[in-house]
């Protein structure tokens, strides 16, 4: 099977945004299987970019190509303005990465892990090691062997390793994996603080609630293809419908359906009224119902969660 060219999904780049990652027509083929199919992505400076998709969608393959760990079958990846294939050695030291499960030297202490990687990266000061250990909350356990760490602690150490030489961009694969609720909140705050410093953060995650809270932009991948790339609020904004709880709902429905904007209105299984508003605004709908003799108990704008949008866009996470 040959890669096919798909129309690029609509994008909404931030005005004047500085491009940090540019992926063009990226394809990876293993035998007859297309792991990544003609992928196009743009990530801008300061973005917290969520990279979502069901298992086997091609997320990790894409991340590995982004980091030069595997070679694309075709297409290009530019990081910080340079092609990763030809300029990986100069550009990748500016990228901190945590790919899949954190890869750590289990026989060494947390501190020595950072020291070993720091030496290899051209030298990192003891002060910097202590700073990143403090950032991820591992300062107190730095002298313990990593073998004795919990999954969450290993995850934190992986993030510390990624932060070691103060990279311009972070690529994190499931950073919240194994963290307890407090740890997830701390990680979220840490990533937000890093983004505020101007760092670009590229996150692959299955924790959609977390992504919705954290990410400024989101791309959804399914079966190796980009389904959409948008801001989370664009994906969750719904279709302009309101849920209205009101006494005499069938009569209110008849009134609404007589209006040009309300012909598609209906009652749901719970007896709530599902309808559009005269000008798309809840207050106008409220006034219309009150003027018609129906005082709503509540009017709720019907939005989707990111999870609902994800399932809709990936056909339930089809693989």
């Amino acid at each position, binding site marked *: 099977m040959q890669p096919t060219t798909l129309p690029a999904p609509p994008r909404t780049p931030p005005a004047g945004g*500085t491009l940090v990652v540019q992926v063009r027509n990226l394809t990876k083929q293993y035998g007859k299987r297309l792991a990544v199919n003609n992928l196009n992505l743009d990530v801008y400076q300061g973005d917290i970019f969520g990279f979502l998709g069901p298992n086997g969608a091609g997320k990790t393959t894409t991340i590995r190509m982004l980091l030069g760990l595997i070679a694309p079958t075709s297409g290009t990846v530019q990081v910080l303005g340079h092609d990763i294939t030809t300029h*990986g050695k100069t550009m990748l030291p500016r990228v901190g990465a945590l790919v899949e499960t954190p890869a750590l*030297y289990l026989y060494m202490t947390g501190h020595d892990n950072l020291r070993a990687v720091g030496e290899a990266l051209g030298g990192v000061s003891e002060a910097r090691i202590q700073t990143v250990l403090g950032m991820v909350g591992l300062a107190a356990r730095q002298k313990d062997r990593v073998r004795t760490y919990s999954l969450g602690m290993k995850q934190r150490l992986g993030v510390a390793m990624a932060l070691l030489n103060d990279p311009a961009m972070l690529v994190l694969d499931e950073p919240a994996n194994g963290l307890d609720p407090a740890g997830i909140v701390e990680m979220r705050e840490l990533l937000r603080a890093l983004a505020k410093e101007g760092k670009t953060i590229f996150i692959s995650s299955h924790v959609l609630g977390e992504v919705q809270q954290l990410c400024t932009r989101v791309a959804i991948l399914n079966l190796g293809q980009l389904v959409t790339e948008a801001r989370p609020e664009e994906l969750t904004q719904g279709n302009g419908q309101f849920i209205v709880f009101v006494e005499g709902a069938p009569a209110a429905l008849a009134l609404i359906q007589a209006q040009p904007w309300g012909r598609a209105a209906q009652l749901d299984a719970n007896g709530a009224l599902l309808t559009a508003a005269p000008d798309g605004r809840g207050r106008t709908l409220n006034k219309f119902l009150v003027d018609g003799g129906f005082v709503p108990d509540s009017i709720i704008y019907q939005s989707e969660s990111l999870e609902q949008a994800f399932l809709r866009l990936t056909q339930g996470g089809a693989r």
Partner: protein
Amino acid sequence: MNATLTTGASVPQPGFIGLVRSELFKLSRQRPIIVLAIVIPIVQILYGLRTIIFLANLPQELVDRGSAVTVYLTTRVGLSDIRGLLGVFITIVAVIVVGLEYQQGTIRVLLARGVGRLRLLGAKVTAIALVGLAGFVAMLLIMYLAMFISFALIHRSGDFSQIPAYYLGDVTLDGLLVLLNMFVTLMLGVLLGVVGRNLALGLSIGLPFFIAESIVSTILRVVSLISRNDVWTHIGTFLPGANLSQLASKLVPDHGLQAFIAGLSINLPNDMIDGQHALTVVIVYGIAFTALAGYLTWQRDVLQ
């Protein structure tokens, strides 16, 4: 309009020396390596005790008359011991350094940060070689210490003024051949680590490799006898272990060594292998192991 961020000047770049230091640091924290660094000298000390006992049992008269020659011969035997021990040591170290890195996935931490694959492999080989050299020096010291104890302390005599003129040349050549042996064994271990990307696989092939090879050699000889065709035996002369074991005996002058160790040596002379052949085959294997390890490291996707 969107701009593209181009940057990259202020972050330190991964350098070769830093990579070697990192590898040495990791080695210094590896328990198996630390255990080996203790066990191997202990075995070497046992070899030294054997030397002491052997020399202590020599008649005093013989020691007084020919201690200088005995020093030469004992040195050659000691270098042969070191060759074997160093080979085992370096194979284990090489497989651990390369295979474990892939197995635990830590290789991607460095590669994803722009460390060149061949540069990283080169740093690993350099670090292993440095550890091997340190081991070689330590073993030499133990060997000479054992000889000193035998001659100077037990026999309280020995005329070393008559050290044979060929001593330095022969021992230097033999020592270099030990290092060549170490390099080929090192690259075999590295290759196994790169191919298998797994510690257990590398060790399970690497450690019994030369034993398996000698079994193959024997089988080839049997096939040769049955088929009455020497070609099978000739194939055996191109195996790496067969040539590594013959290097010293074929390239360093004998000067009475075979007579000295008669009945003790397990490296029986192989008349089908001459020095030139052994050296050529060993160098070809060294280059082939290096090239293959480099090519696979360079070309294969890192999926660990």
